[in-house]
């Protein structure tokens, strides 16, 4: 899980949008509960914006340098899949840098 | 009831207002006269207009309403301003404690009237604004709550009064029995206007509402502030006549005391003049209660 520590090298900002109560956002909510502390400790400078809004589809947004953004829809994904999606976003960041 | 002392002469603007009303009505009348040809209807109208004119005059002849209390707002003066220090005297501080102890601790503000009364007695019969502030502090309310009470009750004087504050009852029974003459006599004798203090600071004359002595009307009250709150008295002098009030004033001026109550030597308290006329014997019990008769 070494990629977790390099979040701030590739990302400028990570945004997790989710609903406070809908079942579609359930896995995202548990993902945040379980991983936020870890991600924040490893990347203390990176803004990890968690934005609740009723009825919104869970999404993961990454902003890279020069305002480039990529997103992943998280509806129906399990926690492991969300982790994987995040890792993919990190990889995109690496490829964008190159 | 309103005194006749406030006639329209003291209120020039009222006179001018009524004069303009009159000229307006006259104009209207002449206008109507010019418009109407029929002499019958013109006299009729003239009469009506004259009647209305008389009514309007009547309105202005009535004394304008005046209020027994002083102004409802405070004006700073050297002897009455919030910067003056005012405190209850040491003796009165004990009294304050005792008064407050009569109320539940969470309803201290209920003591406002007795405390204002005490402050008034201590301060020679009137309440400067700093005394009201002191009361507010004691009962832990905003000063305005005390001002509200002090302005509501006419017994709280917010301007200086004499050492003997004479209050003439002006309510209907006393008025019918001649309270107006009594007041006029008092004012004339002392040479003051209402709520004004004599030069020697001894007397002032005020008016008040019914004190419940209608059976001995007319009556005056003498609030005696000459001896501070310890020697404070508030006595009724009943069945007074214009001559008698002058005598009372003179007695007080000499510093003598006068027993309160009826001033008619032929009456005992509120009993009828010349002794009882009814209920002279032992009343008979009602037959149903007379068990022996059964």
């Amino acid at each position, binding site marked *: 899980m070494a990629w977790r520590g390099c979040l701030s090298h590739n990302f400028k900002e990570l945004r997790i949008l989710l609903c406070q109560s809908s079942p579609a956002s359930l896995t995202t909510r548990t993902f945040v509960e379980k991983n936020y502390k870890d991600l924040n400790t490893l990347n203390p400078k990176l803004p990890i914006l968690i934005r609740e809004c009723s009825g919104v589809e869970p999404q993961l947004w990454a902003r890279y340098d020069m305002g480039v953004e990529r997103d992943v829809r998280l509806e129906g994904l399990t926690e492991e899949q969300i982790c994987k999606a995040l890792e993919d976003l990190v990889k995109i960041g690496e490829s964008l840098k190159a | 009831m309103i005194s006749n002392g406030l006639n329209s002469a003291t209120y020039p603007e009222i006179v001018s207002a009524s004069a303009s009303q009159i000229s307006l009505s006259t104009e209207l009348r002449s206008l109507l006269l010019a418009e109407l040809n029929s002499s019958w209807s013109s006299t009729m109208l003239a009469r009506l207009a004259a009647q209305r004119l008389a009514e309007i005059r009547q309105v202005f002849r009535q004394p304008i309403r005046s209020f027994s209390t002083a102004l409802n707002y405070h004006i700073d003066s050297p002897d009455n301003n919030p910067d003056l220090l005012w405190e209850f005297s040491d003796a009165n501080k004990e009294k304050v404690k005792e008064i407050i102890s009569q109320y539940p601790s969470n309803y201290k503000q209920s003591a406002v009237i007795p405390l204002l009364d005490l402050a008034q007695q201590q301060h020679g019969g009137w309440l400067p604004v700093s005394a009201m502030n002191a009361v507010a502090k004691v009962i832990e309310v905003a000063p305005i709550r005390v001002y509200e009470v002090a*302005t509501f009750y006419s017994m709280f004087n917010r301007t200086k009064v004499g050492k003997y504050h004479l209050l003439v009852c002006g309510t209907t029974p006393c008025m019918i029995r001649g309270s107006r003459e009594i007041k006029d006599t008092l004012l004339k004798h002392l040479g003051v206007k209402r709520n004004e203090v004599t030069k020697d600071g001894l007397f002032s004359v005020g008016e008040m509402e019914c004190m419940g002595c209608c059976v001995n009307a007319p009556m005056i009250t003498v609030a005696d502030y000459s001896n501070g709150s310890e020697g404070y008295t508030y006595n009724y002098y009943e069945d007074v006549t214009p001559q008698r009030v002058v005598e009372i004033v003179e007695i007080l001026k000499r510093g003598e005391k006068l027993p309160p109550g009826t001033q008619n030597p032929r009456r005992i308290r509120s009993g009828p003049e010349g002794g009882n006329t009814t209920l002279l014997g032992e009343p008979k019990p009602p037959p149903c209660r007379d068990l022996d008769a059964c």
Partner: protein
Amino acid sequence: MGLGLLASKAMRPASRIFNSQNPRNFLFRTIVSKPELQKPETSAAQAQPDPPPVDLPPRTPVAGARVHFPNPDDAIEVFVDGYPVKIPKGMTVLQACEVAGVDIPRFCYHSRLSIAGNCRMCLVEVEKSPKPVASCAMPALPGMKIKTDTPVAKKAREGVMEFLLMNHPLDCPICDQGGECDLQDQSMAFGSDRGRFTEMKRSVVDKNLGPLVKTVMTRCIQCTRCVRFATEVAGVQDLGMLGRGSGEEIGTYVEKLMTSELSGNVIDICPVGALTSKPFAFKARNWELKGTESIDVTDAVGSNIRIDSRGPEVMRIVPRLNEDINEEWISDKTRFCYDGLKRQRLNDPMIRGADGRFKVVSWRDALAVVAEVAHQVKPEEIVGVAGKLSDAESMMALKDFLNRMGSNNIWCEGTGMNPNADLRSGYLMNTSIAGLEKADVFLLVGTQPRVEAAMVNARIRKTVRANQAKVGYIGPETDLNYDHQHLGTGPQTLLEIAERRHPFYSTLANAKHPVIIVGAGLFEREDKDTIFSTVETIAENAKVVRPDWNGLNVLLLNAAQAAALDLGLVPESGNSIESAKFVYLMGADDVNLDKIPGDAFVVYQGHHGDRSVYRANVIFPAAAFSEKEGIYENTEGYAQQTFPAVPTVGDARDDWKIIRALSEVAGIKLPYDSLGAIRARIRTVAPNLVHLDEREPATFTASLKPASSQKITLTPFENVVENFYMTDSITRASKIMAQCSALLTKK
């Protein structure tokens, strides 16, 4: 009026007299306007029996009156004009009538104030009651038969109205209340067409209540609403009812200004023209004004307001009802800042010439100059600061623009150098403003709600009065208008509470609904992370944050803050401004200009020529909140939008449009051309901002955060708002606010 007309008017009653047997009729005046009112008791008897209440049309409650049954068993049924309504026990007859859809005329009754029952206008007939009853003060009893449109009730109203008008001057044509006057309306609806009073009307000396409230005390009808408002809501016991009988008057007794930050509300609650707005005096009639429902931006509360404008000018600001935020009050700053919108405005793009003076240029030139400079500096030397009054759209555009320029140094004023925007619960009022009413213990940490957010303070005061809630306050000496314990001045006290050494800790821990409010002024402190984690420790120990109750709140200071943090306006480096070469100030007037290097190029985009203009190289004129459509999120996370009430001044443009245009000139065109498009963009960043008129609560609490390892300093907390009346560029430009701060703020 011609002479003939006058005469014919005089003739008409005369001709009636000729036919009549009794010429005295000319002078006989009757007050009763309808025959059935002359003998109301008998005609009431004739009206019996009641028509069967079968086919009564359903009625809608007055003004959407809501009925809330705290306990369903306590419901009682009463009949209003034969129409049955279910109401909870303890409601008054007047409230029952409102639920039944009958509007009872009233003057002294106000739903948010205590009941006085002294105007008698609300008299209604109640069956089996010998006299008409004052419905505002009479509790409704089961099975009560209330009649509101019987001759008895009508005559009672007519009589009360006649009494009220006895001493009321007939100066409606020169009265500012004209057209929105309760007395005027109700005398038209319920009063008689004549009165029998022929004596002199009384007159009352006007009072000086300060620069905001104009008094014409002769018009006062002694309803005591203002006295009750000042005592109960505003918490300044200055007003009272003085004197008695017909000499009764409202006043302060001693010369005293009304030093409340809510004093303007007495203008709204005064049912007559006795208390009117001093700045608005003789400016306009209410029917000439166009009302625009908008949002206030002078503090972080987001009070709902109506901007009344005439042509291009904002004439006044009045509150709008919103139970969740401001109820029906607004602060004086909100109400009277509007004259600042007309002064010191920037109306043309300007460039500072070599001589140091500004020269008016076209938009094209100004944008070209800025775009060129922006490309000449390194991305990390670009810094953007959003101002206190910025809307979400413009902050989004600014952030996108700077991000695309390669810079990540953008923040909003007042959020500090190192803001943490990760969890919304960390900067929002999680209890919600209305939710504060449940609280029984408050702990205010470094915040003075009275000057920072007057409406929140009014809620706390309401709660303190209703629940006897205890308030503990940590911060510099201040005057809160409710009973409070001053626990200390700085972090020392906070540490004591956190370590359970302070007696207030047990008060907090024993509370059912404890509330901690942390001031946003602490964001500026170096040790803010530690202070926040100390507060979080207290919250955890005292069970302030539970699954059913989140009592840990942050009270923000300005309108833009919540949205800025939601949008992630977080600088990459806290002191980037010190090495900046290109500074974009979007309405930011409270940045420390000394920190900007001397060779930096400063762009100021804003609506007022305030502090930052003196440092600016280029000025972009923008629209003020009264001239644009923009989303603002308040301190509790409630997104609302303003609407344009008046046109923009001169060549000014909406903020987001300026940035959008600049981005095109700079060659990195932002992908939105309309308000809808930019809001769609916001939806991908903070979707809660486009959920308008809804509060989106935060779910993740601070417990997710790792502990802070900073060192706490023991410097005491400071005053954040020095002058309540002047906090931003609009209020600083306002003459009225200047008068207020000169007269009303304590030195």
